[in-house]
């Protein structure tokens, strides 16, 4: 399985902080990624690893604080790959899930709407017709 190298993870942290900065009670992504198990993300999205490595390599010579801007201006695909990995790791974090109010799709028993006949009355009144003679 593809894995992120320590150097890649290190390079991601500052970039992640700029992509998902701290705000209110929401922490920045860098601090989450620094301690996160990225295994589940990489397991589900193995194709992301080379794309992220490539994107980071393309800005390796750019000062750290300028890398987000450089990717945004010059490498939309690279930024999308980095963004996918950063956001996936961020929103998988249990504490972030709690703060956002979304963890998974829960099982919600289905109930039939009682008002559909009434609600569709104006549509029935439209009396749609077909351009095909003899139908509609």
């Amino acid at each position, binding site marked *: 399985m593809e894995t992120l190298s320590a150097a890649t993870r290190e390079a991601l942290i500052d970039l992640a902080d700029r992509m998902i900065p701290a705000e209110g009670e929401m922490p920045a992504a860098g601090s989450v990624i620094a301690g996160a198990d990225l295994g589940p993300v990489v397991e589900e999205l193995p194709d992301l690893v080379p794309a992220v490595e490539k994107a980071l390599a393309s800005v390796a010579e750019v000062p750290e604080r300028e890398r987000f801007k450089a990717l945004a201006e010059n490498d939309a695909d690279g930024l999308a790959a980095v963004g996918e990995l950063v956001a996936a790791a961020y929103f998988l974090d249990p504490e972030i899930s709690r703060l956002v109010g*979304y963890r998974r799709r829960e099982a919600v028993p289905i109930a039939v709407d009682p008002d559909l006949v009434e609600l569709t009355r104006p549509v029935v009144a439209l009396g749609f017709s*077909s351009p095909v003679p003899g*139908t509609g």
Partner: protein
Amino acid sequence: MSETSGDQRRAEVVIVGAGPSGAVVAKKLVESGVDVLCLEQGDWPDYTTSRAADERLELAAGKHWSWLPNVRAGVGDYPLDESESDVSALMWNGVGGSSVLYAAHWMRNLPSDFRVRSVDGVGDDWPLTYDDLVPYYEQVERDFGVSGLPGDPAYPRWDSFPMESTPIGAAGHRVAKAHNELGWHWWPSANAIATRRYGRLNPCVQRAACMWSCVDGAKASVDITHWPDILAAGGRLVPRATVSRVETDARGRASGVVYFDAEGVERRVEADVVVLAANGIGTPRILLASATEEMPDGLANSSGLVGRRLMMHPFGAVVGVFDEDIGSFQGVWGQLIYSLQFYETDESRGFVRGAKWNLMPTGGPLATTRSFPWGYDTIWGDGFHEEVAKRVGHSAVWGIIAEDLPEEHNRVILDPVLTDAYGNAAPRLVYKASENTEKLLAFHLERARESMEAAGAKETIVAPQIRETGWHLLGTAKMGEDPASSVVDAEGRSHDVPNLFIADGSIWPTSSGTNPTATIAAMALRCAEGIVRSRNLMEVA
């Protein structure tokens, strides 16, 4: 579910493909006492690997349960060369076919879809009418398990559903009321999703995850609704059997098929009848690959139309963002409501034909960071959290399925270089959306924006056009009455090879603007009836 064992060298009817059309044909034939063997290139879906019920759902969609065979690269997937196509083809190769991943929108074609040439002067009429197909629609709706509300004035003779309609949710209510005020059509959606226990289906639990597989057994995919009964009735199914060609005898009758089994061993099945149900790309691929010295352009191709007239329903989307929480990551996905307000031609719009709209949820937080449907203005940086909070639970999206017209230059051909794991030529898609389609989409996107605004959306976003929208693979083995201008007749029988049938969406003369599974299934049932009826008169090899 285990593979069928025993002798697989002979069958009365061999079916290629275990998706919706293959399953419908197999069910009808087995019920009629016909000896059936189905060869399916993929395997049974392994729902234990699905992430639909856990926190990885939106990640897993990116690879293992991807709609793109080139991304998934799983068992049964052949590579696709799409370098000359505006749209990427989406499919699931395995038992159940694309019903494993479809959103289960269950739309009949409208009466005008069968009369496009007569009504609008473009495309072709089908060699049958809506009324001809109604009894078949009714049967497959019972067999799949469809929920809905009868009475939509856009559809004649759609008088009942096996189950009550799925709930339309807060988003559906909001947009429905807006359409009532606008005087625009809408209707609670028909979905192949159970709202109560129905046959092998469980009631839906509203995970809004249909398109990443249903782990709750509530969505009518044919691996659940059809194949267990077919196998119990004596039908045979061989998964991981990749058909490379149809064989013919000296008189040009189909004599069987050649396939590679799971171990890569080339095998042969003799059959009285061959039915292709391998979708709008797989079916022409097999026909073209079955070329012989006598038929250098491929099997059943005296018209020259095999592979041509590919239609894939270019897709548009408009998001509405609302102040209120409209619960947009749970519910039926599926569709909440649909609209056919702008389905028929209005010449003043500058294009012909139209589109069906389906209102759907938008997903969880990770989905809100992606460019589709949210646009290329990135969400990253200052304001990220505010934007996510604004979107999650507060948004819904109109999906717009555009009818595209049949054009012979849009086609499936055999790639001269790319092959699958067994050395079979891979398909290459050549597809470009027409000017009519571009005008059609532009008009519909603006009207959908007006719909969202009327519903109270504080922000609307027209999604960027993306490649990954080719859900509906149609038109590449056209049905018609004239052998010079069509590949098969109105029951899917080849004009050239009388014991060869095509049961999938390949045979559509025009694409309609609706989700095609209902009509593919109804046509497959009609095809199967034709086989049963002519069984004793069939000219076999």
